[in-house]
């Protein structure tokens, strides 16, 4: 059910050209996916996705829209090549899932190997009940440090781009042709 809603939202995103609506719809999409994550037992992820997808990114998009205008112009040409690429990729993926273990199967390899260790040993080794936190901050704490760095890198990037006055609007003099 959720998935169907998601699919509908996706199609809506594709068609609508008023970007305000699209951003709102993207927020809805995020919330729906957060719902999906909850259903799939990924409560932490759902929480985060709701905060990020529906919260931060919506705010950022709205800010960007305020600056960049909110109407999307009609594409000038039929996007056949992208369509082809997308279909190809999709078919490849579907083909790939053919041999994938069935959804939700408890015997799937994913759930064994290291996952078992986390679930069985983490309380003993780390002492906190939320396994996700254990894995996030300890077993794979280094990934999280990388994640923190990514966020920091994004801040540096945004600062580099947006700090200071609006610069060099149209400055053909400073540019060189390459034709």
């Amino acid at each position, binding site marked *: 059910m959720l998935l169907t809603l998601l*699919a509908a939202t996706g199609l809506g995103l594709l068609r609508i050209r008023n*970007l305000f609506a699209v951003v709102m719809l993207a927020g809805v999409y995020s919330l729906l996916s957060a719902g999906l994550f909850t259903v*799939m037992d990924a409560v932490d992820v759902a929480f*985060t996705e709701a905060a990020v997808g529906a919260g931060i990114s919506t705010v950022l998009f709205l800010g960007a829209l305020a600056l960049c205008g909110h109407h999307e112009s009609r594409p000038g040409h039929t996007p056949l090549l992208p369509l082809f690429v997308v279909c190809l990729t999709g078919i490849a*993926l579907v083909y790939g899932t053919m041999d994938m273990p069935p959804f939700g199967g408890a015997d799937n390899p994913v759930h064994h190997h290291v996952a078992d260790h986390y679930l069985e040993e983490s309380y003993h080794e780390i002492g906190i009940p*939320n396994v996700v936190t254990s894995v996030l901050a300890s077993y794979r704490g280094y990934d999280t440090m990388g994640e923190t760095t990514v966020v920091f890198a*994004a801040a540096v*990037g945004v600062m580099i781009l947006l700090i200071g006055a609006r610069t060099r609007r149209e400055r053909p003099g400073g540019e060189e042709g390459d034709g």
Partner: protein
Amino acid sequence: MNIGLLVSHYNYWVVIFLMMVGFYILISRGNLIKKVIGLNVFQTSVFMLYITLGKITAGTPPILTEGEVVYSNPLPHVLILTAIVVGIATTSVALALAIRIKEAYGTVEEDEINRIEAGIEAGG
């Protein structure tokens, strides 16, 4: 193709469909903001793929409690938490870039930007 496969893989396929919608928006749309939205959708759908992998039917969230329970796999959750953060980081940089492009070119439509750039190249 049998029904069993359809049932057991239905989730994957919808997720793939969503992924492709996002991907399509990303590569086919000329508006830079819309592209970023597409990227977001694309990435969110990939997250769903991971989470779908981690689900065990009749499992519960991996927060340890008393008694014999089946927990869903926590590892994909962790990976996706990281990925979500990475996603929003990318989005913010992309939007900042779009803003600067708007300031420099007066538009965020790819076609018009290409026209302006072609103009520079011919004129220079």
